[in-house]
């Protein structure tokens, strides 16, 4: 069976006053129906931009899709006219963004905002859309939905607003839900409830999910597959257990190693990755992480490594690295 989503060689740039910013560089991956992909990265990693670009949500100009294909159910989204793309967004592909304060319209009731895609995409009558909106609010765990539906966003707490955003994101039973730092602004207890909700939804309606975050813990709990991005490229991807237990990119390893976990300061200092993320107007010539990588070889500094299946790793565990991380770790006495 063909994957639900297949991205091939996606490259995105932005024109800025300081020069061309290379936001996404030759990104390719596939997503199977029902899979949950957790994408991890920091600012400038390309994790958010690539997701926006694939559904035509980056402003052009200053943005520009230089190359690539985004096949969704076999159709290249990058070639679709805006009108058809608009039908797919919100209907087949739902979104939840980071900031529920700015993503909701403050002067419309939350009910109106949930009903809007139902009426536009599914052609439901006002009464049917309202009934469905109440169902959705109930589904995302909002108590007393029949009353709350007529309230305005300011009458909801941050966590409740984020639930409303998720209700809008899943309103039309999308095949694919893309969430970008959807719980980052929330308190941990609220985040835990939202993640539980997403797990439930996957069970109930089988949604395919792309969950973009900087939090390794969230990915460990939610995703089937993890994809680590840096400098607009995929550094490593694969089944979560395989990547967490046996990382092959020095960047993935460094991120995991720098987390305190159960360490206390009395035990030891935190491992720190030196330097800062690259300026993507002047990206490093070779492997984007090479200038910060203590295991980098000459070749890493010159040539971009391809993303390849890890020899002894689980099927689908891929890494972009010229160096052999397990050997390098042993050499440096990290094992």
């Amino acid at each position, binding site marked *: 069976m063909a994957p639900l989503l297949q991205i091939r060689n996606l490259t995105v740039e932005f024109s800025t006053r300081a020069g061309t910013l290379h936001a996404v560089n030759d990104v390719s991956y596939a997503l199977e129906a029902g899979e949950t992909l957790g994408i991890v990265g*920091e*600012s400038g990693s390309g994790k958010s931009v690539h997701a926006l670009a694939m559904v035509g949500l980056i402003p052009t100009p200053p943005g520009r899709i230089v190359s690539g294909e985004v096949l969704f159910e076999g159709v290249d989204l990058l070639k679709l006219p805006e009108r058809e793309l608009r039908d797919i967004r919100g209907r087949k592909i739902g979104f939840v963004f980071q900031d529920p304060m700015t993503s909701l319209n403050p002067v419309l009731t939350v009910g109106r905002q949930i009903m809007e895609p139902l009426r536009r995409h599914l052609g439901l009558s006002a009464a049917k859309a309202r009934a469905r909106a109440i169902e959705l609010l109930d589904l995302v765990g909002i108590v007393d939905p029949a009353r709350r539906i007529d309230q305005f966003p300011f009458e909801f707490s*941050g966590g409740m607003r984020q639930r409303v955003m998720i209700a809008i994101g899943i309103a039309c039973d999308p095949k694919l839900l893309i969430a970008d730092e959807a719980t980052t602004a929330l*308190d*941990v*207890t*609220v*985040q*835990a*409830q939202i*993640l*539980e909700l997403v797990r439930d939804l996957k069970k109930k309606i089988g949604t395919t999910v792309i969950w973009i975050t*900087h*939090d*390794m*813990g*969230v*990915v*460990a*709990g939610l995703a089937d597959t993890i994809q680590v991005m840096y400098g607009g490229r995929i550094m490593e991807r694969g089944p*979560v*257990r395989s990547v*967490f237990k046996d990382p092959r990119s020095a*960047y993935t390893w*460094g*991120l*995991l190693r*720098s*987390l*305190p*976990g*159960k*360490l*206390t*300061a009395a035990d030891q*200092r*935190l*491992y*720190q*990755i*030196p330097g*800062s*993320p690259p300026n993507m107007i002047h990206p490093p010539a070779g492997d984007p992480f090479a200038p*910060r990588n203590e295991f980098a070889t000459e070749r890493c500094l010159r040539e971009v490594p391809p993303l390849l299946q890890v020899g002894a790793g689980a099927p689908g565990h891929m890494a972009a690295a010229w160096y052999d991380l397990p050997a390098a770790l042993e050499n440096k006495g990290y094992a």
Partner: protein
Amino acid sequence: MSATTLLKVSDLQKTFGGKGGLLGRGRPEVRAVDHVSFEVRQGETLGLVGESGSGKSTTGRVLLQLEHPTGGEIEFEGNRLTGLSKSALKPFRRKMQIIFQDPYASLNPRMTVGDFVEEPMIVHRLVGGRAERRARVAELFDLVGLDPSFARRYPHEFSGGQRQRINIARALALEPSFIVADEPITALDVSIQAQIVNLFQDLQERLGLTYLFIAHDLSMIRYLCHRVAVMLRGKIVEIGPTEAIFANPQHAYTRALLSAIPVPDPDVESQRHAIAFDYETQKSPDGAEMRPVGPDHYVLA
């Protein structure tokens, strides 16, 4: 622990609103800090955790007299700060500094970062001549891990991690003994956070600093803090040695909070279940007081 008390807070209160607003209807009073008492000991790092709206940041600001408390007392090195005039407060201000979450917003874009670090010394007339101050700026840059030649540059030339180092250098300019760090790593890239946490620790060792570390990232709190205070809706509900709090949490809210932290290990995560907390049914009863539940470990019950 028999350390000396550096800062003592008794029955601190801070309320917002509550005075008859427009049309005399009056806004409801918000008790951001609701009868809070604790102490910070010389040389320790006390973690203050809680969710948004718990009053943790307000507590930090009131401690430094950036906001006036509605009631209660603050003692620093045995001196009562509450009720002091501005000029009487100035020598104490020097010794208590704050570092904020957003390293972008707190720098002045039109000032070289060297001038930015030097400014407090001028305001407090701390270091004599210009040359002397410049030498001190170079020393401070070195101390926080920045090349002293960067002092002539402007903020936009620096990354988030470097900007936070600049903020830390400025906070250290007046040789404080106590620093409130309000979510100092939250806005930084993940690959930078460990660098700044290590810097906080190095500075504590070298300069004998005392920290109040305000954060919602509990794994970092566990790593960095000697003791932890948990805040819920303006009240401290539990306070104690870090390991006691993490290994043996007593308040229902502390348990819920700890159970909600995602762990970067798929095997642990598949077994983890967040414990729910319902404020109305599980809050501490009226008239609750801090009661000992273990050595140096207290819970509101």
